């Protein structure tokens, strides 16, 4: 085998191995799911509560939002759920985005300050891919076609 052919073989063999390795690693990583935020259920599965700042994503539970107008300013607390058993109670002092409401998807940045309790530095509202006029949304809800879990997540 002449050197050129031999080197071509090395090149293509190397490319094939590297490609296989890259695909395998990517599949492995996607199985572990690399996330922009944790959901409450994922957080509950962790062995120990993270001490560093994290992002928490989920839906604001219905009838969970409480405003505490103390002298320190507006403090709001609410529960974030993801349909599983685990929930996280979030305390936040600051401006909430327009989209923030019960049942809405949110991404909360902050630190865990206890088991299932989080102090937020920032609350971001996540909006979904559905765009429609208000009347249509209401009509859909009345007809019962509207599935609540379509929002957020």
């Amino acid at each position, binding site marked *: 085998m002449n050197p050129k052919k031999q*080197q071509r073989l090395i*090149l293509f063999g190397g490319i094939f191995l590297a490609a296989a*390795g*890259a695909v395998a690693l990517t599949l492995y990583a996607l199985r572990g*799911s*690399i996330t922009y935020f944790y959901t409450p259920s994922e957080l509950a599965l962790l*062995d120990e509560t993270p001490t*560093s700042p994290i992002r928490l994503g989920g839906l604001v539970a219905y009838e969970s939002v409480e405003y505490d107008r103390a002298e320190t300013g507006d403090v709001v607390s609410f529960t974030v759920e993801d349909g599983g058993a685990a929930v996280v109670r979030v305390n936040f002092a600051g401006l909430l985005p327009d989209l923030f409401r019960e049942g809405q998807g949110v991404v909360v940045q902050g630190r865990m300050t206890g088991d299932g309790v989080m102090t937020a530095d920032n609350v971001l509202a996540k909006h979904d891919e559905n765009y429609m006029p208000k009347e249509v949304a209401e009509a859909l809800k009345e007809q019962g076609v509207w599935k609540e879990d379509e929002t957020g997540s």
Partner: protein
Amino acid sequence: MSAFFAIIARDVALAFRAGGGALQAVSFFALTIVLFALAVGPDLALMSDIAAPVLWTSALLATLISLEQVYRPDREDGSLDVLAETSDVLALTAFAKATAHWISTGLLLTAATPILALLFNIEGPALWPLLLSLLIGAPGLSLIGSFAAALTAALPRAGLLIAIIVSPLYAPILIFGAGAASAGAAGDPQYGANLALLGASSLFAAIFSPLASAAALRFNLD
């Protein structure tokens, strides 16, 4: 195949001779880390929180400044012609050049990390994720970087241009590298996934970089 190793040996030797980039890169690495530390101030807890991103960014910048040395000197003194006329598969030659660059910068930076990490209050077990991520990611930095160096081989002052071209391409390696190092230190389960994606990025760079570099070099021979 002996040519492959001869190229690596020569480039590594050159990097450590007078005017070579190896010691400059590692000094720059140390300097950036010190400057970061001075800017952050004395908060040790904050320092260990940001150690991984700071060391990763510094390693990236140190790699960046040494990239101009990969192909431009060879183009200027005629060596590139010799490499081209003796190479059977130019992509393998480009791979050898990138490997040599990794040995003389990336590996050196990784080796210097345990000491420099002390400046950011990182020691003991927290060090391992950082070292492992650099070991996996730094070859990717050299591979992608040497592609940008090949594109600009014929340009006399390409340092800034290389930085502009290569920075967006470096983004995945930086994100997954610093992400893995941070997650590993914090005991976060995303450590493995970040490390895997870092490895995938480096392997992907190992595929495209030699081929693209070879194509670029051919047009830079003219």
